[in-house]
């Protein structure tokens, strides 16, 4: 298991290195250069050159890449040339808001989706099973930003039940939760049906396996068979799915943060693109990519840790 952990984390690190290199090469290949983009058309060539030197863009590509990783190892993502603050500080100020949103967006669908999925699998063709089936298709059809807009329109603008914009008072947990309700609902909604459908399919497969018959033959309760014995196996594919789902959650967070004017990485990127603050954009993309790669690795490790067949074989 230790060897597997090291190997899996090593792969994650390799992927991050290749991904960042690709990104840097791309920056290099793009016509025009970031310095000109950042300063706008009215900047003199001298000003552009000065910025280029400050950002290290005058050095050869290979040196740029080397320096980038050297700095990355020290936790240095470069400087925000407009505000003269480290990019890492700016990004990590915003990161907790996005993580909080992602947590709010995935915890309730996982719980609700799992319960619905297990129920649907054990009560096939029941009303709830049919409703979940319809819901999973109907809701997946609406992307998170569309749901966000309607949630904003209905619950914040028309009914005025919940706040429309911002993240609430950072010191009050209840207030933050209130501001998380709509964005968390909007991103999570499509996940409920999706997770329910996956859990249902996975559970149906497990419930058909011979050991379930053994559990029944020993008189174990249906509750324990479904939620104890079968779910423990049926949940395993869902964990992997959630790791990959982190990418979708990060993407959805961008839109939802914009719709609800919430602080966070997504809003930071959009605002930085608008203000042509190129280093901050790259820093935020880098951090969110690392987050995604890490979460798929953690999902794989969690999967291995929860499945004794894998855990003991490694």
């Amino acid at each position: 298991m230790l060897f597997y952990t090291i190997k899996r984390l090593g792969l994650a690190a390799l992927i991050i290195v290749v991904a960042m290199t690709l990104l840097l090469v791309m920056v290099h290949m793009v016509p025009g250069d970031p310095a000109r983009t950042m300063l706008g058309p009215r900047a003199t060539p001298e000003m552009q050159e000065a910025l280029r030197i400050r950002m290290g863009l005058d050095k050869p590509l290979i040196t740029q890449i080397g320096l980038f990783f050297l700095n990355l190892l020290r936790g240095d993502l470069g400087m925000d040339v407009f505000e003269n603050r480290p990019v890492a500080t700016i990004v990590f100020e915003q990161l907790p808001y996005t993580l909080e949103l992602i947590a709010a967006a995935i915890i309730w669908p996982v719980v609700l989706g799992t319960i619905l999925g297990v129920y649907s699998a054990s009560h096939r063709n029941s009303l709830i099973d049919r409703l979940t089936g319809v819901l999973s298709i109907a809701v997946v059809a609406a992307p998170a930003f569309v749901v966000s807009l309607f949630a904003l329109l209905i619950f914040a603008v028309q009914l005025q039940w919940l706040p429309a914009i911002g993240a609430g008072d950072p010191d009050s947990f209840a207030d933050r939760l209130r501001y998380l309700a709509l964005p968390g609902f909007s991103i999570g909604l499509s996940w409920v049906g999706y997770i329910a459908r996956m859990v249902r399919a996975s559970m149906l497969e497990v419930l058909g396996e011979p050991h379930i018959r053994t559990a029944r033959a020993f008189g174990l309760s249906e509750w324990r068979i479904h939620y104890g014995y079968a779910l423990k196996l049926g949940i395993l594919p869902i964990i992997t799915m959630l790791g990959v789902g982190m990418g979708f959650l990060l993407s959805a967070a961008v839109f939802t943060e914009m719709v609800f004017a919430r602080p966070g990485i997504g809003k930071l990127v959009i605002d930085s693109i608008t203000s042509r603050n190129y280093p901050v954009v790259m820093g935020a993309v880098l951090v969110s990519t690392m987050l995604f790669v890490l979460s798929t690795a953690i999902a794989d490790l969690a999967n291995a840790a929860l499945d004794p067949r894998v855990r003991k074989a490694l």
Partner: protein
Amino acid sequence: MSEPVLKVSNLSIDYRTEQGRLKALRNIDLTIGAGEIVGVVGESGCGKSTLISAILRLMANNAEVTGGGIAINGRDLFKLSARELRMMRGAEVSIVFQDPMQSHNPVISIGRQMVDIQFRENISKKEKLNRAIAMLAEVGIPEPAEKMKQYPFELSGGMRQRLAIAMALLCRPKLLIADEPTTALDATLEVQILDKLKDLQQRYGCSVLFVSHHLGAVARLCDKVAVMYKGEVVESGDIDTVFSNPQHPYTRALIECDPAGLEERTRMLPTIPADFLEAARS
């Protein structure tokens, strides 16, 4: 003799399929008294599995009882409530399934599984665990205490079948069903498991319904035998009587085809034609 442990009377079961009704069991009669070991033999598809699932009421969804009944310790099985049924399974009737590789949950530890099936007992978890360890020792699994934290896939096939027997006996059932418990094992292991089963049966005094297509195993273990063919019991009685003087042509053919019972070596193993009875009548 007192009340039989199992009394199957005139039982008929159909499967509803897209092609129409399939008669799986026709007018089955089978009685097992206290402490008896009864073998059921027949080729695959003869209805053995349907009979077992009926005795545990674990039939497939498309199975339908069209007549007859089953009584366990005098109680009508088909009249039990879901709760009564649960209380009966494992405690009054328990089973050792055919495939030891797949009949245990792979992600729940052996200890946990063995503790869970003692849910009827009003004793502490620690005590349940001790009982489980003692039972593993009894079926001949080495280092039983260490096995509690292990998972079924970590045991070999023979050990897993011993585990299955231990679990089946853990709640002191009146009737143990053994569904081809040795088919998936090699011959040496088979003999060991059969001897263990016989030994434990005598110690615990339970009745055994031993289902097999292997006549040698049945002869080694059972007091009585019932021969099934195409959903019917074609012949039944004491093991010696049936095997030494088979009345039904199918039983005779079955005995002839058993490789272990063949008197002389032949190059061509005899087989039973698919439409055996038609062939026999013509």
